[in-house]
């Protein structure tokens, strides 16, 4: 069984390593020191089980688990945490189990056995699980088979186009498969709908203009494209511009 360890503390990883060595029958595929590394390694190494610390810098364990659940072959997630506060939330994010540090060998064995029993189909069901109530800090996407993590505060707009949503960010654009409606709900307040198919980042908003064809468009900081504003959403946008001067 391929296992990925993710913990920002080296002694914690060392302890897990030695416990797993004692238990045997496992292969430690890799070790990550934060959520981003964990997602990248999980994408590359395709582990069966991820032992995920909840408190990690950048992308924390809970958010990492949400992204992992969206993977093509989602690994089983076992949370590890030093303090019991997160236990309930951890189950909401559909972890297989959670372990309290310092972890007992017996508990770790049990959790691993439980994770092994679940087959891929069962893990796939996790994907349909609703995302947690907290908004993500990153959007997880795939570009030419590579995992890409885009910080939400670098995204200028989302535009829905047939089956996909284009995520335009400061360094380019990627396609994701999430419905625009879900994104609008998750990032309510930070992103504004200006068209049936477009959400723009409020913090990127630079101005409103009218083209020769009598169509309103918005200009956004750092990107050249000027998304179209539909008549239905024009009023709301004007109000917002007025409020921010």
């Amino acid at each position, binding site marked *: 069984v391929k296992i990925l360890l993710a913990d*920002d*503390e*080296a*002694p*914690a990883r*060392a*302890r897990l390593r*030695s416990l797993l060595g004692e238990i045997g029958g496992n292969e430690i595929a890799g070790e990550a*020191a*934060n959520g*981003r590394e964990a997602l990248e390694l999980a994408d590359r190494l395709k582990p069966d089980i991820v032992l995920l610390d909840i*408190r990690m*810098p*950048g992308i*924390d364990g*809970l958010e990492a688990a949400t992204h992992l659940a969206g993977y093509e072959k989602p690994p089983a997630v076992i949370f590890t945490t*030093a*303090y019991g506060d*997160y236990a309930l939330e951890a189950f909401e994010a559909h972890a297989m189990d959670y372990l*309290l*540090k*310092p*972890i007992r060998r017996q508990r770790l064995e049990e959790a691993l056995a439980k994770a092994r029993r679940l087959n891929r189909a069962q893990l796939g069901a996790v994907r349909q699980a609703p995302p947690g109530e*907290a908004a993500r*800090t990153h959007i997880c996407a795939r570009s030419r088979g590579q995992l890409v993590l885009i*910080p939400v*505060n670098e995204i200028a707009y989302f535009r829905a186009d047939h089956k996909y949503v284009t995520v335009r960010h400061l360094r380019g654009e990627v396609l994701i498969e999430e419905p625009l409606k879900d994104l609008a709900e998750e990032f309510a307040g930070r992103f504004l709908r200006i068209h049936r198919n477009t959400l723009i980042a409020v913090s990127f908003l630079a101005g409103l203009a009218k083209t020769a064809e009598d169509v309103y468009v918005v200009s956004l900081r750092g990107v050249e494209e000027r998304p179209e504003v539909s008549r239905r959403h024009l009023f709301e946008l004007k109000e917002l511009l007025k409020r921010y001067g």
Partner: protein
Amino acid sequence: MRNRAGRITRQYIKFPRPRAVRPQRSGGAEVFFRHADKWPTPVQGPRGRATGQRQGQTIMKSSTIALPRAARDDAGGFLPDFCNIRIVFVIVVTAELLAFILALTAPGNTAERWSRLGLLSLFIQWVSLSCAGCLCLARARLNRLPSPFAGAAAFLIILLMAGVAVEFAVLIAGGTGLESFLPPGRHDEFLRTSLAIAAIVGAVVLRYFYVQRQTRRTIEAEARARFQALQARIRPHFMFNSMNTIASLTRTNPALAEEVVEDLAELFRISLADAGNLTTLGAELDLIRRYLKIETLRMGERLRIVEETATLPLDARIPALLVQPLVENAVYHGIEPLAEGGTIRIEGHCGDGMITLCVTNPLALAPPRRRSGNHMALANIRERLQLHYGRHGRIEAGPRDGAFRVCLTFPHQREAA
């Protein structure tokens, strides 16, 4: 409940603060009685005098029998120290007031009343001061008794002194031409009247001391409860992570594991000790270094520390765990959310009798979810500063030059002489 406690605490603060006291090990409300020993008296200096005056005003407002807090009450009984100059003064004033009342109610013209006042004053001061003298001598014994017995004994002493004074007065009056005020035939009546007045006034005064002691105890108990509620606690998060570090080190580096256990024990010993304990600045800085050593083991190179505290007076007395929570906050909110880590700066300087200590940590730009409690820790330290230093203690916190900085300013208190 909180409101009530808050109000009472403020009332407590209004009293002069202990300037520097040794940490007390004894339990119960006694701790504060001992602090009372070191409350500044009116002759102790400009600050002490000012507070003494303010206190005097408060008391005149609150009671007809003006009585400052007993200076020494360590025995636990309710009788104050009657040798204390303030108590003596209060007794003299009270006795004089009684003399005025008696002179005013006596028949006769103004001139007669004045001369009567003179004699009454002499007599009443005599009785009250001899009572004070006896009670001063007997106090140590009396305060060992249960309160009702001590009260009864003190009451008997007052009656006895009044009786003795009457007999002496009669004896003296016989040969000095004062028969007009004290006719020989009215000896019995004089004795009865004197004893009755002594009984009434004595009972009222003793009752007053008793009630005052009870009130003070309540205030102290509530202040103590408040101290306890404010006691700085080490985050459970830190505790469990440290345990995990130890569990890991036990295999790889038992010697280091041992050190961590020792450091952790030190931290918890202080965290679990009596609330309101005092320590020295040097010991607190030492504790912070132990704490940071454990955190460095956990976080490795992500945690970098710069300490500039060489000029601080290490002997300054401060409440225990005044600074450590700030450093813990800096690690929790400033370093842990950053994948690349950052530097914590601990800087201190001293001047004009004030010590300033600043803790700076990097500002995590997008604070991840589920991190809170910073303001609680700051509010807690602010309140403890105020409880200990009054308005002389300050805490300022805020972003500065892209970092988060908390500064404590408080007076340099040396060890009590």
